[in-house]
Every structure is written in C-alpha cells, then in structure tokens.
C-alpha cells in the first residue's frame, strides 16, 4: 500500500517536472560549435538578445558534425556552425529553412616555438602541412567531424599528403573537441590547426604560438540556420527566427564586432551572404 502511494507520488513528480520543462518561460536551444561558446562570444552577446526579446538562448556547444546531427533529430531550434558544404546539405535535405552567413574568423596553424618543421611565417597553409608531414613532426588532429576537422582534412588534401598507416607515427587522431586537442598539442609539443577564437581565449598556451596565418584557405565562415518547423513541428520557429534576425541586424552584428578577448576581436561580422 505504502509502496503504491510512493510510486504514484514519483510518477506525479516526473509528470510535473516534464510539464515544467515544456511550460518554462521562453527559450530556444542553439546547437553551436565549441569555438563560439568557449571563446565567450555567446556569453557576451546572448544576454543582449535576451534583454531585448525576453528569449533565453540555451547553448549546446558541440562539434559542427554533432550539432548538425542534433538539429537533424530535431533536438535544437537553431544551428550556428562553420562548414559550408554540410550546412548546404542540411538545408537541401529539408532540415533547415535557410542558411545565413553571420560572421567569420580564420583558422591558424599553431605549434611549439622551436618549430621543428620550420613553418613559421609561411603564408601557404598547405605548404606548411606538407613540411610537417615531411619532417614527421607530431600533429594533433581533432578527428571528430567538426568544422575545424573538415577544414583540416581539406588542407591535407590540398597539400597532397596521404594520411594512412605510415602517418600514424606523427599524425595523432585525438577524437576530441578543440580545447582537449589544444591541451594535447601543448602537452605533446605538437602542431595543431585551430580556429583563432578558441586559440586566443585558450588559457593553457604555455610555449605554443601561431606559426601560420593569413592564407585565404584558412578562412572560416560561420552561418546560422533555423531548423525546419515543417520537418520538426515542435521547433520554436518564431523565437528562433527572432534570434536569427537579431544576429543579422546591425545591433547583433555590432555586438559580435564589439566582443574582444585581451583587446582582440575574435569574430568579424559579415551578414548578408546566404544560400
């Protein structure tokens, strides 16, 4: 008898909690990449949006690959990621409404100061990777299908380096996020490709530094996409669209531009492009 009472009490609790989760005040779930969250950008600009709209943006920061996967399953309302081909496929497959470019920054090749592969100052990222491969210097790769990882693979292809069994001695597939991979690179004296935002705000640099930058191939575009309410009817489309509109507005763009770490801007607004 007492058991039955306790069990019903628990069921009621669970139901109430579920109800609360659904009835909570206005919020959207933003699936984004670790770079935007870990650098502090979202922490800086989201309160501005909330103050204006009353909508709380809950950020699930994962790699671009996982973010797209979450959005496909309908587990996010808005996507903020950085791998154009995947994004276009996402929209083409009917999971996203429209792709809007929001901002950009760039990838940088990072390595130890003593630079065993002698790539410092090269303006050709693929050429630098080719030298790393030639020298057999340790390189840590995220290997997690993130935007950064996909960009890195494209650079290896451009460098004509085949990553196979023979490269295992120096090419380390971390299978981790940007931060964990940077920690590993620092610990292993390895080279690594990172987005500039994460690197600048990364606090465990020790004696690693940016060695190659400025190659157009290192350009890193971020785009925002509303998950299709046609595909997933529960998507909070109105608030999601309001967030996207705000990001693309002068106000949102100015907020992105105003975000600095150590006086450095990390993201450069360039709304206007879309596909």
């Amino acid at each position: 008898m007492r058991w039955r009472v306790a069990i019903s009490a628990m069921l009621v609790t669970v139901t109430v909690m579920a109800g609360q989760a659904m009835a909570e005040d206005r919020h959207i779930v933003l699936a984004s990449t670790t770079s935007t969250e870990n650098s502090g950008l979202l922490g800086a600009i989201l309160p501005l949006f909330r103050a204006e709209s009353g909508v709380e943006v809950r950020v699930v920061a994962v790699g671009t690959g996982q973010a797209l996967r979450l959005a496909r399953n309908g587990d996010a309302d808005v996507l903020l990621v950085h791998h154009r081909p995947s994004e276009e496929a996402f929209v083409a497959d009917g999971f996203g409404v429209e792709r809007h470019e929001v901002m950009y920054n760039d990838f940088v090749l990072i390595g130890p100061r003593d630079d065993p592969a002698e790539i410092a100052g090269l303006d050709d990222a693929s050429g630098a990777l080719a030298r790393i491969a030639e020298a057999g210097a340790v390189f840590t790769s995220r290997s997690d299908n993130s935007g950064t990882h996909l960009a890195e693979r494209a650079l290896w292809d451009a460098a004509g380096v085949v990553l196979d069994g023979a490269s295992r001695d120096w090419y380390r597939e971390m299978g981790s996020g940007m931060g964990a991979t940077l920690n590993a690179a620092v610990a292993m004296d390895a080279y690594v490709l990172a987005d500039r935002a994460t690197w600048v705000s990364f606090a465990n640099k020790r004696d690693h530094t940016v060695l190659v930058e400025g190659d157009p191939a290192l350009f890193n575009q971020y785009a925002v996409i509303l998950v299709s309410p046609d595909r997933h009817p529960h998507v909070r489309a109105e608030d999601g669209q309001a967030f996207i509109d705000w990001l693309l507005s002068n106000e949102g763009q100015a907020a992105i531009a105003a975000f600095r770490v150590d006086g450095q801007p990390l993201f450069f607004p360039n709304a206007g492009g879309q596909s």
Partner: protein
Amino acid sequence: MQSPPVNPTLSVSPKRVEPRCVEPKCVEPKCVEPKCVEPKCVETESLMSDFVQAFGLALHLVASFDPELVDIVGRSLYVSLSAVAIASFIGLPLGAVVAVYRFPGRRAVVVLLNALMGLPPVFVGLMVYLMLSRSGPLGPLGLLFTPTAMIIAQAILITPIIAALAREIVRGLYDEYREQLCSFGARPRQMVLTLLWDARVGLSTAVMAGFGRAMAEVGAVLIVGGNIAYATRVMTTAIALETSKGNLALALALGLILVVIALGVNAVAAMLGGASTRRYA
C-alpha cells in the same frame, strides 16, 4: 591565466574591427612582416603552479559565493540526489528480492546486475539521448537537455550498482537470519522488508557508492544535458568545459570543490546513519 600581454601574431589592423566587412570572402589582412620569433623569453610555467593556483581559486570561489558556482553546485546535488533516490527506490528492493526469492533465471539476473555495474556512462547517455530525442520514442515529452533527462540517465547508470551491492549485502544478512525468520513464519515479502531495514547501515554504503558514481559521472549528463549554462551545467561538465578552455587551475578548483561536497554528503549520511544505528539497532 597566462596569455602573454604582447603577441605580435595577433596584432590587428583597425580595418578588421569594422562591424561589417562587406566582402564576405575577405581574409583578414595579417601583419605583413614575416613571422618573427617572439622576443619574449619563454618561461614555461610549472604545472605545479596550477595546483597552488587551484587551491586559491577554490577558496576564493567558495568564500565569495560565486553565483555561477552556487548554481552549478545546487544543480549537481539536485540531479545526483534525485537520481540516487530513484535508483535506491528501485535498486534496494530489487537487490533484496534477488537475494531472497528463488525463481528461474535468478542467477542470470545476478550476473546481469553485476555486468551492468560497469555500464559506460557515454553508452547510457547515448541510449537515453536516443530515447528522449525529438526523433525518439519519448521525444514529445521534451525532456532532452533538461535536468530531468540527466536524472534519468544517472538513475539508469547507478540502479544496477545499488541493486548489485544491495543483493550482496542483503544476501550476507539473509544467510544469518534465514532460519530465525523461517521459524517466525515470515513470508518472503516480510523477509525482504526486514532485511532491508536491518541491513540499512550496509545499504547506506551501497547508496553512497551510487551517489559517488552519479556525482563523478560526466559522459552521460554531457550528452543528455548538453552542458547548458544556467540550465544543465553541473560540476563535472563545468570541469570538462574549463579544461577544454585551458583553464586548468579553474577546472582543478572545481574538482576540489566537488571532492569536498562529496565528502560533506558522505559525512552527513554517516552522521544520519550513526544516529539511526544508535536509536534503533
């Protein structure tokens, strides 16, 4: 922590600060001069300094009642204690029933429980994610990325632990009690209740083991909770996040606080257990 004050590679031309760069494909004009080897002397910070810093940070965070820390600690306790309550509610009777009742397949259940003790949290997280995802069978409940989802994942993770340990503990007492309870004419259901009550001191250890696993667990809550600030961030996911940001000292400080909290909860449980032992045992 130690980002160098001057880093020529990051110098920016004023042009890049403009709110809008009209040409979307423009690449930031980088400082043109070839990469210079930074002149500043390379002082490799000793890793030990992170530990020292961590203690200081931990004390500071606790002393200042850092609101974000309070939020995270509160949620950690809420999630893990709820999960332990649910897991105990299921696991303790389950363990006792398996210890006392004879039924076909009992050995298989025991083996299964023992095996499930080693469930990888990430696996549990993934299963719960697939269940709670909008595309999953329980999607309409809208529980993904909520503390409730984290409670469910942790409860699944620790129920087998509590059940298996409870079975072991109850079994030991049952071997001692069996003849006396039979002599009193106790039926199996009464035996289960008696054993659960009389083994409460040992069972509190099982519950604490479950609580420890829940508090320390990161893989499952990261997947089903999403580590959303002020919504689903708990101690362990915050530690993972700070580590990935390279804030090793802050991560360590949070870890120290986690250890202290775990100690505190165990101490409270031991005190309560001691009191109940004195009163009833």
